[in-house]
């Protein structure tokens, strides 16, 4: 009778304990952020493995998402004789939602999981412990550069994603389906507001970058040092990042666009 209740209680306590550890770890990261300024080379090296290596998947996905938006938008709009509005439909859905969200999800899968696996492997093979014994703080040397690189990369990748996708929509809408090029761009400019739409999209991707980076490095650092523990951590990074991004997107959208 009390068995399930006890399990529920234990599970709840476990969740809170992890949350607590996660926040303490975040605090350590934030207190050590200075190293990103004093040793920018460490960050640049991580920007390569986190950002540059994610570039291809982001650009290709962006292109396809934009082309699909172009198609679907056209099919729907042409029924109302409003295919001229294609540009604004494509651009608004991209800068407000799809750009930040899809980029964050892809990024969690591509770079977040890699970060977790890398840090987890360093922990499993005692490299982090070894650094501590060499009087090198692994949070400063390993964690912070990766955290900062992920945090910087996501907004840049989201911008690239949206820009490529807008072009993808242009190829399909204007190139293939015959929407007027002028109205594609002018409708876009008329309906996309820089502060309300573009800036809010950037803010979203900054928040997502922070959260995905945090989850990825925490899961890596908190991994159980076995191969099974590492695979679980990697999975958790992707799942938790995705859930966090989607939930935060809902909240942020409510805050940003709720007043219309």
């Amino acid at each position, binding site marked *: 009778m009390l068995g399930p209740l006890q399990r529920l209680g234990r599970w709840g306590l476990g969740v809170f304990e992890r949350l607590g550890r996660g926040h303490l770890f975040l605090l350590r990261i934030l207190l050590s952020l200075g190293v990103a300024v004093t040793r920018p080379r460490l960050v640049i090296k991580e920007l*390569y493995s986190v950002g540059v290596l994610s570039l291809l998947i982001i650009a290709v996905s962006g292109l396809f998402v934009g082309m699909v938006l172009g198609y679907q938008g056209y099919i729907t709009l042409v029924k*109302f004789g409003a295919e001229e509005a294609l540009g604004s439909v494509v651009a608004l859905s991209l800068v407000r939602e799809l750009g930040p969200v899809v980029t964050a999800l892809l990024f969690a899968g591509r770079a977040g999981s890699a970060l977790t696996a890398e840090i987890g492997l360093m922990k499993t093979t005692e490299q982090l412990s070894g650094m501590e014994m060499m009087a090198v703080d692994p949070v400063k040397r390993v964690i912070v550069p990766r955290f900062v690189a992920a945090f910087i990369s996501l907004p840049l990748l989201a*911008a690239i994603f*949206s820009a490529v996708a807008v072009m993808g929509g242009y190829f399909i809408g204007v190139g293939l389906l015959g929407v007027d090029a002028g109205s594609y761009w002018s409708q*876009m400019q008329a309906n996309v507001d820089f502060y309300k739409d*573009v800036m809010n999209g950037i803010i979203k991707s900054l928040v997502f970058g922070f959260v995905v980076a945090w989850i990825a490095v925490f899961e890596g650092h908190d991994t159980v040092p076995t191969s099974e523990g590492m695979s679980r951590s990697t999975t958790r990074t992707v799942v938790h990042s995705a859930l966090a991004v989607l939930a935060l997107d809902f909240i942020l959208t409510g805050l940003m666009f709720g007043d219309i």
Partner: protein
Amino acid sequence: MTTRTIEIAVGIFVALGLAGLFMLAMQVSNISEYRNTDGYTVHAYFNNIGGLKVRAPVTVSGVRVGRVTAIRYDPERYQARVEMTISANHDYLPADTQASIYTAGLLGEQYIALEPGGEDDVLVHGSEIYYTQSAFVLEEIIGRIMVNMTTH
């Protein structure tokens, strides 16, 4: 992979990201309108502005010459006061220009169309457009038609 290659690749990455942001700002959104603030502001009173929004276009013969910058209700005149900024190069609009609120397409957004009059004086900063035509509100028109039909 040498440090140099990595740094170059990262440089390209950051440049691409910034280029993406730049494109979103300049090509996709309306930041150019924010930037382009040199113009003069005129205002007009309307009985009903319908669904007119701030930042809606202001056109002459369909050509965009400015945008709506502020809308508020004037409690003394019981009318809506609409301020619009018109680009400085369109400084030839006669003082008796008429402003009408139209709808772009059947379901599209509302905008202000200016029809130039014949006076020699032109609109300048702070002028008021006296001749206005309110927004076309479907229910009102239908109501009027119904009344006409019943009185016949």
